[in-house]
Structures are given as structure tokens and as C-alpha cells.
């Protein structure tokens, strides 16, 4: 026995806690343009290194460089910037609503806007997302009525979900946005199932699953990877690695020394690791993976490297567990600023248009909020009668009885 030293228990720790200086020296950031772009039919085994590096397009000077910069449509970039600005305006306004006591709860995606907005731009009508609570950008870059979104947050009389769901748990089949669940990870395998159905029916639609870095630890993450590996359905599996899961850092999900993209290496389908704050990289990688899926070459896992600038939710205070300045020290910068600088450099945009656009979306959201508030706030419009509907397609006798008992 004495031959061996006592074992030690290892618990990973982030590089900083409150009071410490932020330290991102461990985050390795390859040069923009340095990562190759394989053809979309490349076999997983022939592109393994893409799981360990980082696809980046925008260099320090705001230029688009390298193979992933090719063939990106300018209109989409401009529209992407607008959509990101819109998302941020929306997040800010909803925070205000929460502070005003008009909703109990909200979750922002500040700093992560490029991912959902850029990915959505690569999708087609009819495709389906299985999002988490931090992909409002998917809905906000479609024509889904923003008033409806706010009504959901207010649980008022026009809430499309009739007050039944926690704020931000949107659902819109028509806009390719699957009903958000409170239970982490469940949607990842559902996305795989939806894609299997598309293949079973000989359709051409694809699905996208979404999950956070912390939630990759959930069992259904594995279910998704196994089923994706076996049936090779047309699905893109997106991991949004924003470094934090409430108070626990990526290392508590086993993402400190391995990358999350590398999780795919044992499952015979390819993975990309992408600078999630670089809209051009996001859009290019999304297009690649979506096209790969739609052409029948199967699933792709993508790790989007980003940072959760916002608190986890309105119930959270990150200054309790991470260095105060960490978000501003994040080395991949702000996605809006980076795209804006790129477009200005290319004369596709200007500071004035930026200011105008920000004002325009602030106004839009402000007006929409006002309209939404007219239908009630803080659940005031929700009807107890709606509580008993849609548990089943037809109301069974016991629920009819209970509804009568409540007298509604």
C-alpha cells in the first residue's frame, strides 16, 4: 500500500473569481483565415483537426480573410448586422420591463447575437430549430411578430402561449422555432428525431439542435450524438460555448482541456469549432453545415466559442462568482462591433447608419412594447379557463369536472 501515494481529488477551477483579474491567456485563438475549408462531402475522419482549432474570418483589421471568407453575400452581412442590433435592442428593452416589474423573468444573449442570427441566415423556410432560451436571435431574424414575443413575456391576453409558459419560452412552428423546454438538453435529441423524419420522408428539410456548454453534460446530448452517428440524419448540432453555466465554468462540463467540438470525434461525423463572435465565420460555417446536411452528407457538430456577457438570467448576479471585468476582457470581442467595423471598412455601412439603425430598432421595440403592454402585464391577461385546455386534444371528463369546480 505504502508504495502508492494517497490519491487527490481534482476539481477544476476557472482562471478567476471575484476580486481576481480576468485571465484568458489559456484561450488559444488561431489567426483569422488560417483554418482550411474542406468540401462539404469530406468524411469526418479527414477533417478531425477542425474540432480543435477555431474557424475565424475577420482579422484584427476587420478584413475578411481565408477560405471561409469566400462567397459570403454582402446583403446577408448587412442584414445580419441589422438583426443583431435588433436583438440587442430587444434584450435591453425586455430587461427594462423586468426592472419595471412588468415581467418576472428575462434572459439576455448579449455578446452571443452573431450565432443565432448568423445561423438563421443559412437556413431555409421549412427547416426547424430546436433552441434553448438563449436563441431569441433565431426568431428575431424572421418576420415573427415581435409584439407576440413581448406578449409571451408579459403573459397577457395576447400571449400566443396563453400564459402557460415562463417568459421567453417561445414557440413557433411556422417560423421554424420549436417550443422551448425548461429541461436542459431534451431538445438536442428531438432535433435529431425531426431530421430523421425528414430523411424518412425523402424531404429536403434540415433540423438544427441547440445546447449550451454546461448542458452538453446532460444525458440527451449523448443520445443526440449516438443517434446522429447511427442514422446520419440532416441535422446541425450547435453547442453555444459561452464559457459559463450559471455559476460554473466550462471546466465543470469537461470543457477545460478538451474542446466541446471534439466530442464528435468518437461518433463518426464532423465537427467545427468556430469563433462565435465573428459573424462572417458563423455564417460561413453555418452554410457549410446546413448544405452538408441538406445534400445528404449527414450531421455536423459545431462549437460556437463565445462569452456570456449577460447574467445567466434576471435572477442571477455574476459578480458573485466571476471576475467583474471578465466580460470586457473576453478576447473575441463584441460581435456587433466587429461586423460593423468590417462593413464600414468595405463601405457597406457607416457610423451614421449604425446610429440610425440602433434608433430605428429602439423605436420599433419601444412601440411594440407599448402595444404589447396594452394587452396586460405580469400575467394579468391570462385566463384560468385556458389552464384546462390543451392538456389533451379533447378534454377528458376529469378535467371538465375540475374546471367546473373552479367555476371557470
Amino acid at each position, binding site marked *: 500500500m505504502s508504495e502508492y501515494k494517497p490519491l487527490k481529488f481534482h476539481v477544476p477551477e476557472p482562471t478567476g473569481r471575484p476580486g481576481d483579474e480576468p485571465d484568458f491567456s489559456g484561450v488559444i485563438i488561431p489567426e483569422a483565415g488560417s483554418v482550411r475549408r474542406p468540401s462539404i462531402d469530406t468524411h469526418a475522419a479527414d477533417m478531425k483537426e477542425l474540432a480543435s482549432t477555431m474557424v475565424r474570418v475577420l482579422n484584427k483589421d476587420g478584413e475578411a480573410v481565408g477560405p471561409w471568407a469566400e462567397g459570403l453575400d454582402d446583403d446577408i452581412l448587412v442584414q445580419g448586422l441589422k438583426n443583431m442590433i435588433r436583438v440587442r435592442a430587444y434584450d435591453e428593452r425586455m430587461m427594462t420591463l423586468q426592472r419595471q416589474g412588468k415581467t418576472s423573468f428575462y434572459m439576455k444573449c448579449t455578446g452571443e447575437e452573431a450565432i443565432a442570427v448568423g445561423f438563421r441566415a443559412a437556413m431555409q423556410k421549412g427547416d426547424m430549430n430546436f433552441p434553448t432560451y438563449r436563441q431569441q436571435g433565431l426568431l428575431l431574424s424572421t418576420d415573427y411578430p415581435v409584439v407576440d414575443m413581448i406578449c409571451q413575456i408579459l403573459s397577457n391576453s395576447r400571449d400566443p402561449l396563453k400564459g402557460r409558459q415562463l417568459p421567453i419560452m417561445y414557440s413557433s412552428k411556422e417560423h421554424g422555432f420549436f417550443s422551448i423546454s425548461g429541461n436542459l438538453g431534451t431538445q438536442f435529441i428531438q432535433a435529431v*428525431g425531426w431530421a430523421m423524419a425528414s430523411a424518412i420522408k425523402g424531404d429536403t428539410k434540415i433540423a438544427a439542435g441547440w445546447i449550451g456548454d454546461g448542458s452538453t453534460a446532460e*444525458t440527451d446530448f449523448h443520445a443526440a450524438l449516438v443517434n446522429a452517428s*447511427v442514422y446520419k440524419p440532416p441535422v446541425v448540432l450547435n453547442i453555444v460555448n459561452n464559457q459559463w453555466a450559471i455559476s460554473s465554468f466550462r471546466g465543470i462540463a469537461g470543457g477545460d482541456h478538451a474542446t466541446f467540438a471534439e466530442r464528435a470525434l468518437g461518433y463518426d461525423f464532423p465537427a467545427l469549432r468556430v469563433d462565435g463572435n465573428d459573424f462572417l465565420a458563423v455564417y460561413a460555417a453555418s452554410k457549410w453545415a446546413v448544405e452538408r446536411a441538406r445534400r445528404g452528407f449527414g450531421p455536423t457538430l459545431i462549437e460556437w466559442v463565445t462569452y456570456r456577457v449577460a447574467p445567466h438570467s434576471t435572477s442571477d448576479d455574476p459578480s458573485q462568482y466571476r471576475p467583474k471585468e471578465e466580460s470586457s476582457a473576453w478576447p473575441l470581442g463584441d460581435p456587433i462591433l466587429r461586423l460593423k467595423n468590417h462593413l464600414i471598412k468595405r463601405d457597406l455601412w457607416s457610423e451614421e447608419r449604425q446610429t440610425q439603425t440602433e434608433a430605428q430598432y429602439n423605436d420599433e421595440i419601444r412601440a411594440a412594447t407599448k402595444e404589447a403592454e396594452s394587452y396586460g402585464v405580469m400575467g394579468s391577461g391570462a385566463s384560468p379557463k385556458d389552464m384546462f385546455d390543451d392538456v389533451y*386534444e379533447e378534454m*377528458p371528463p376529469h378535467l371538465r369536472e375540475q374546471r367546473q369546480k373552479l367555476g371557470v
Partner: protein
Amino acid sequence: MPQMSMIEAIRDAMDVKMGQDDDVVVYGEDVGYFGGVFRCTHGLQKKYGKHRVFDSPINESGIVGTAIGMGAYGLRPCIEIQFADYIYPAYDQIVSEAARLRYRSNKDFIAPLTIRTPCGGGIFGGQTHSQSPESLFTHVAGIKTVIPSNPYDAKGLLIAAIEDNDPVIFFEPKRLYNGPFDGHHDRPASNWSKHPLGDVPEGHYTVPIGKASVFSEGSDVTILTYGTMVYVAEAAKKETGIDAEIIDLRSLMPLDVDTIVESVSKTGRCMVLHEATQTSGFGAELAAQVQERCFYNLESPVVRVCGWDTPYPHAQEWDYFPGPGRVGKELKAMMEAE
């Protein structure tokens, strides 16, 4: 009319629905080429192709999770969990997802899935091949739970389940697959080929979800039961000579309260009988409802005869199983009470 075992009737239901509706797909562990460990899907892959009948990885959460995704797409998956004892890894997908989807999305998305799974004991299968977890599902709003006791009901209920736009857990009492079983394990097994309920019509028909059947009329006492225990109740009735009205519930959620109340109002006594462990079993719900609804008609307390509150033991199976001896004894005691 063709004579079918329960296995054949279940298979036939899937066959009928797959023939009628391209959106019906069937999968689960070992259900593809091999046709399932109980052979319920035998021949279906050959007939409908690998893209509609296939093996799944051994991941029950994945089986249900993919089915929810398929349902959201527009398919109608009919999936198998190899034993009900192995449904727990899928519990989150069933409870938090399938059951809630219609409600939480205000019917934007639905989960029209059928989850078939063999349940119950009596096959010397030990702890993990014998369980009856039905009450773990009846507690969950948004799920329907059914359990047939014979080939005719099995086919009709399974077709109804596949056609239902809500998630249905379809329990298959495995002890009844090949023949009715009265709990006398030491007597020769009987066979569906000689039983009137083994008469199963060809083609499409349904048995409605939410309707009980009066298996055997009587006036002394009502026995509320389902699955394998229907035949145990019948045996006890015969052996004691007590004129029990045996109600085969068939559907636990929704429950056919009218049939129950009508019978108990008539007999004035009620026994609840199931294989599952007693505490918080579905029998608790039945007893609670009967006393709520028929209190002033009851001449004696509702009695529960259930599996003991232990894990399902292997070698003590016949001491655990609520057989005709125990049922008969309790029936007699009830008739003496007042």
C-alpha cells in the same frame, strides 16, 4: 374470424396502421430485422422497409426523444421500450416533453406517439423484467395510459393509440402474450387460440381509449382491475363463488368513472386489484375515487389487493404475485365485513 395471440394482435395493429398511413414508423431495441425480443414486430421490416421499421440504439431517452422530434415533424411513431422496467431512462422525455408539448406550445406542436412496453410479472423475470409502473404515468398530466387484457382489445386499443394525437403509453401484460393466465402458475398454460377474446377481426377497428369493459357481471362486489389480473379476478370469483362484477378498466387515463360508479353503486363493495406495489399504485387513485364518489353506497371499505411494497423478487415470485388465493381470501373477508 382469425384467431390471434396477443403478440399477433399487436403486430396486426401496427401492420394495419402502417398499411394505411405512411407516417407511422416503428422502432426500438431489436425490433427491426429480428422483430423484437417478444416478436411483436416480426416481419414488419420486411414488409415496410428499413426506413419505417428499424433497430434503435440502446438509449431509451433517445427512442422517446427522437419520436418527439418525429411527431413534431408530422410522423406518428409507434415505439417499443423492451421492458417497462427500462422506461425510466426515458422518463424525463416522457414527463417533461411528450406530456407537456401540446400544452406549453398552445398546440403549435404535438406529440402523437405511442410507447409500447411489456409490463408485469409471472415470467420469473426478477426485479427488472416484471415491473408494473403504470401509476408513474397516470400522475402525469398530458399522457394517456392504457393496458389491454386480451388480443381483441390489444389490437383495437393499439390502433386507437396510434391514431391518437396525444402520447399514449401502451402497456402489454407480457404474461398474457400467449394465453390468458389465471394466476395458477402450477397448472397448464392455456392459449388464446381457444379463447373467444382471441377472435380478432381482420383490418381496421378501434377500441376507444377511456372506456372500461365489464368483463364479468355480478352483484356482490365490484373488482376494478386490468391486465393480467382480470383473469386472476375471474379465477377467484369462480373459486369463492362470490358474485363479483369484474371491470377491466383497459384505460387508466382517462378513466371510465361512469362505469365504475355504476357498478359500485349496484354492488356496494369494491376491491381494487393490481400487480404493482401497493403504496401510491394506481389502486390508491381508484380507492380514493370510489370512496369519493360512492361513499354513501359503500357497505365496507374499498380493499386493495396489490403487489407487496418490495422490489419484485425473483424466486419468491408466486408469494409476491397477488394470485387467486389472496384475492379469494380478501373477497371472502369483504363479504363478511359490514
